């Protein structure tokens, strides 16, 4: 114990010395960026390239509302130059204590190294008037699942590129060039996705949670109901029956669910309506092969179009 504290004292002292002695690097540097979700990490990597060292806290197959604020995240946060969050209170249950405990003045809210990506994106479902929890776990600032729209991805990438350039002006041209390249590739990919989805525009679907409004808007899908009776409230029998009736009435077959939800209720709804449960990935890394933002949509659109074909 004494030994441990002694060596840790030396380590601490060394650390302090390094901090004090290290010269401020005016030239190009590698920015250490931490993002809350993998999607933001993927977009940061697209524009930051090898000038940026980026890592996400949550896993792509994890419910982003309920992430444990593990101390191991502090190890990542304490040396970060930039923290990019989804915002709109998505991470309210776990990010604030991490930021407070990180001991990193750079990434505190409203400082230069804190970026709320929601400012760049088109936000849907902003509640009007008074908000109460009678509506469940409602997000008073609007729906935070906005990254599932390639248009928003483009806007966020642009915002991140501007931020990176502000923090590392020497690489401004590099970030801009990569951002433009990403934009071009995204436009091409989007054309392909739109073509794949074109036959199914206007189709009615139901989703488990309100996670897909931006996706539905982009591809012209019509979300008519939710398996959750209220956001964050697990399915109830009475609501499930209502939903089944609605789906039969509207001839709706497709249920979109995230990998972190229990498929039992959706499956039983599917058996009652002759429909199909489609487990779509809400984030990069949801499956090992989904390594970037393009593969995320490739994957989701592939399984969704297959499901549409099967339930014709």
């Amino acid at each position, binding site marked *: 114990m004494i030994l441990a*504290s002694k060596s840790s004292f030396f380590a601490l002292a060394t650390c302090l010395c390094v901090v004090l002695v290290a010269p401020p690097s005016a030239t190009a540097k590698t920015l250490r960026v931490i993002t809350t979700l993998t999607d933001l990490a993927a977009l940061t990597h697209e524009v930051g390239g090898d000038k940026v060292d980026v890592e996400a806290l949550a896993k792509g197959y994890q419910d982003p509302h309920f992430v444990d604020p593990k101390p191991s995240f502090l*190890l990542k946060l304490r040396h970060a130059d930039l923290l990019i969050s989804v915002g709109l209170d998505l991470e309210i249950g776990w990010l604030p204590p991490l*930021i407070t405990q990180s001991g990193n*003045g750079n990434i505190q809210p409203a400082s230069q190294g804190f970026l709320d990506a929601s400012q760049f994106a088109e936000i849907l479902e902003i*509640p009007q008037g008074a908000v109460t929890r009678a509506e469940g776990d409602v997000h*008073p600032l609007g729906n935070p699942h906005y990254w599932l729209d390639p*248009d928003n991805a483009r806007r966020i990438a642009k915002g991140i590129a501007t931020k990176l350039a502000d923090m590392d002006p020497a690489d401004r041209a590099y970030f801009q060039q990569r951002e433009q390249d990403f934009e071009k590739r995204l436009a091409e990919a989007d054309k392909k996705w739109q073509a794949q989805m074109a036959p199914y525009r206007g189709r009615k679907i139901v989703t488990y949670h309100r996670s897909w409004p931006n996706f539905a808007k982009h591809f012209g899908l019509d979300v008519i109901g939710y398996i959750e009776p209220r956001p964050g*409230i697990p399915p109830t029998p009475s609501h499930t029956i209502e939903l089944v009736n609605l789906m039969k009435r509207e001839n709706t077959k497709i249920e979109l669910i995230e990998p*972190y939800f229990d498929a039992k209720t959706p499956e039983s709804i599917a058996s009652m309506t002759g429909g199909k449960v489609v487990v779509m990935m809400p984030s990069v890394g949801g499956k090992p092969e989904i390594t970037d933002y393009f593969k995320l949509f490739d994957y989701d659109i592939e399984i969704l179009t297959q499901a549409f074909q099967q339930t014709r």
Partner: protein
Amino acid sequence: MRPSQMLFAFMVVLTCAAAAQQTANVPATGSNTDVSALEQKIRDLEDRLVMLEGQVRQLKAQKTSMPSEDTASPPTPSSTAVTPAQVTMPQEAGRSTASAGDNVRLGGAGGAAAKALNPDISVIGDFIAGAGHNPLNPTPAFQMHESEVGLQAIVDPYARADFFISFGETGVNVEEGFITFTALPSGFVAKAGKMRAAFGKVNTFHNHVMPWVDRPLVSQNLVGGEDGINDAGFSVEHIIPAPGKWFLDFTGQAFRGDSADVYTSSNKNDLSVVGHLRGYRDLTDDSNLDLGVSYSRGHNLFGGDFITNLYGVDATYRWKPLRRSIYKSFVARSEFIWRQQNQPSLLTCQSITCPVDPAAGFQRAFGFYASGDFQFARRWFVGGRVDRSDRAFNSHLNDKGGSVVLTYWPSEFAQIRGQYRFTRYADRINAHEAFIQLQFALGAHGAHPF
């Protein structure tokens, strides 16, 4: 007109102008049918609109964090300026009006900007119904055990503050009220105020985050019970570089020296101190191990010459499969606590069982608990706890007990818990008790550290 409103109006006018120019250009370029260029322009325009909307949201958020004397004036200029934008971009119209109310903050602050600087306010109610007989530690049939009001906000760019005011059955108590300096150099995090000391795990817990209705026997007997070591002072915390994937963190605290029956400060110099070293490691993505050693020292109620030393070891194992994190989890936790204290030797021999060889008023008491909590469905948890603890003032007396707990969450903001507790007190009294607890939260209660 405030600067933010002017900027907003300016941006809207700019957008309209750009949109008007765009529509004017359509017939001219349309004949050349450069459709993709046109699409690109529309996309750019949309992006600019979304960006401007985002900036408006940011401005509003900034406005809420800046005092302004005219916040109550009706925002007519900006709302009339919104109208043309709604005409040009009909699909955005709903959003533009909707965003006018988006400074609604979690916690029910409403849209009124005058309330914008209020901290996040929360109230957590803790209602307990008890049945059974316990002559040594009686509990009423019904009690509004605690109403904890939380007030939390960022103070300035360098600090945040958290207040937890506890309204109990007998009175009001500042459970915690402290400022946290978040922007200190070299990664230090400092707190000053009244706070729960970083001694072990249970001592740091507020009532509503515990997996039980009560606190373990070892907390009751050796660490001050529900109040615990909770005192005015300051705290400094720092992450220590560690090998491998270990997270090491040291917390050092100094307090006035008044905490329940643990410490009493007879004069200004009778401070108490707490040191806590935490080691944490992710075993896999789904499981982790959290270890801690704690030490605390202070003066006890017999006067400045009488010292109490507390030593603690805590271990927590957590399992939560990330893919099913909202349905399944398991936490196993145990704390071992030793309490040594000097006290007048007379007291040692007053009780029923007089030690064979009384150690001149020096008491060495030990206690522990071990618990497991398993979440078996999205809203259901089952758990158990084994308790054992000597008594602080006569360590030859030894209490034992055990509990089983079932918890149900109607939503994230309410919780119903049933607990059966058996205690065998050293005085050869057995107590069988059952509790039903209702906890319910209003407003935005900030997340607690892991």
